[in-house]
């Protein structure tokens, strides 16, 4: 069974890659390339998968909330993704890369007795990015 819990955080960023010229960056990323940055209210869905335990739950809600709060929300909420998150330094702060960073932050030394099955981040209500975490073979 899968359980999905939703969280929110707000952060600023700017899309810009040193691999391209200033003009090419502007053309590629458009408004997202504004040198002053801009922000989003991100919506994060974390999905875990496992059997129902003796309590009738897939996962203890407070344990899951605590892990996400500690590893993700506390670090990202009301922050600038380009300058304050070491894992993202040198990387373009697209929501694709952000989803990868969140997955790594959660999955490294994962402490819950269920597996992390998915990370989905909506940058706005109109676009979202989902990482399916494969089962270990």
């Amino acid at each position, binding site marked *: *069974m*899968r*359980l*999905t*819990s*939703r969280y929110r955080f707000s952060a600023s960023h700017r899309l810009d890659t040193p691999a391209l010229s200033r003009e090419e960056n502007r053309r590629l990323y458009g408004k997202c390339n504004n040198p002053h940055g801009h922000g989003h209210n991100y919506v994060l869905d974390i999905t875990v998968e496992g059997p*129902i335990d003796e*309590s*009738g*739950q897939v996962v203890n809600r407070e344990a899951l909330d605590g892990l996400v709060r500690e590893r993700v929300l506390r670090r990202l909420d009301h922050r600038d993704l380009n300058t304050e998150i070491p894992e993202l330094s040198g990387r373009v702060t697209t929501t694709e890369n952000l989803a990868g960073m969140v997955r790594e932050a959660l999955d490294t030394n994962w402490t819950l007795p269920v597996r992390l099955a998915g990370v989905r981040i909506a940058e706005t209500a109109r676009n979202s990015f989902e990482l399916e975490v494969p089962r270990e073979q």
Partner: protein
Amino acid sequence: MFLTRKAEFSASHVCANPAWTAERNQAVYGNNANPHGHGHNYVLEVTLAGDPDPNTGMVFDLRELKEILNREVVDPMDHRFLNREIPPFDRVVPTTENLAVEIWKRIEPQIRRDGVRLHNVRLYETADLFVDYGGPAGEMS
């Protein structure tokens, strides 16, 4: 092709194991263990898998699906106290997980037929928390 139908019901419950102490129940279920109960507006999304019937163009008759969901889930559970009024929740803790399993058990035999099967039961406890259950076959691993 997948077909999904939505239904809503509101019910109260207590998540606590009567064999455990109040402290342990509080540790495992948090606020949900309040012995007086509390309620949710549950949202149910039932997904069927099948091919459209060549004559009707439909995977499943939506009116029949609505009737099944009403008869098995909404009519018995809406505005009820699950622990007190809806077996098996007099002995099974009515977590969202267990509720999804019970809903699967109730509707799956009535949906299964040639070319159609129940694929997923998604149950939202709140807009920010839901479970997906794909039936007992998927729970082996």
